[in-house]
């Protein structure tokens, strides 16, 4: 099972993202965090493969600010910056610890992207 961490401050969006990952039984949602600080704590104790990361979060740190620490806590995890803000794309491209950038308007691509990042597409 590929463990997924969802970092998102809106509980409704958290639940909907978790539902999308539940459509592929090879993924398991290992944790939900509404702040980067909670995410870091979960990342340190879970063997994560995917982190779905919003930028605007409930705590002091933004998602983009937390990326280096998240990558250090979970070096094997692929980080998908999943945001409504298209203007963050340039910053995400310049941040090597972010493995993929996806707008929330392109939600239909989230699961295939996670499958691709974890080399699962060939198994479909």
């Amino acid at each position, binding site marked *: 099972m590929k463990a997924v961490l969802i970092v998102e401050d809106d*509980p*409704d969006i958290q*639940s909907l*993202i978790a539902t*999308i990952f539940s459509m592929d039984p090879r993924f398991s949602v290992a944790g939900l965090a509404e702040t980067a600080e909670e995410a870091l704590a979960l990342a340190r104790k879970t063997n994560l493969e995917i982190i779905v990361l919003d930028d605007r979060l409930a705590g002091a740190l933004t998602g983009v600010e937390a990326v280096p620490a998240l990558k250090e806590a979970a070096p094997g995890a692929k980080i998908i910056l999943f945001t409504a803000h298209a203007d963050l794309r340039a910053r995400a491209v310049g941040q090597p610890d972010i493995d993929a950038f996806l707008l*929330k*308007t392109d*939600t*239909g691509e989230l699961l295939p992207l996670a499958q691709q990042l974890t080399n699962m597409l060939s198994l479909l």
Partner: protein
Amino acid sequence: MTNGDLTTSREPAAAKPDGDGASSAQILVVIEDDPDVQFLIEAIFAMDPRFNVTNVAESAEQALDLPPTSEPGIIVLDHGLAGPLPGLAAAPMLKELAPAAKIIMFTAHAALQARADKEPAIDAFLLKTESEKLLPLAQSLLGLGPPTQT
């Protein structure tokens, strides 16, 4: 969406036969004011090719401007919407517009359940924190089983 359009129309997907013998896609209308939630609901229903998102509206007023239909389908209805008419109040009018459609009230507000249960136009009530039940619930309301794996 062109300027002045009241709802976002989705291009109809090609109807595909399914494991239950039905040959046409079930219409799906999403009435939700948060675009992020709209897209996530669409992504969930996209997992079952028997559903075809035909319209998305951010207010009940926009949805009520849609043409009447006798086709079966699902209306996913939030309560707090962009316009003055809340989802619960709009449900009877939506049912009149699409009498064969099943209306799922999909809301973050658990306190609405008692009122929704008393509203005959609402076929099911689901909290947004239980979104994993959304697609199975819609399939069940329309008498569809799980999609056949291909």
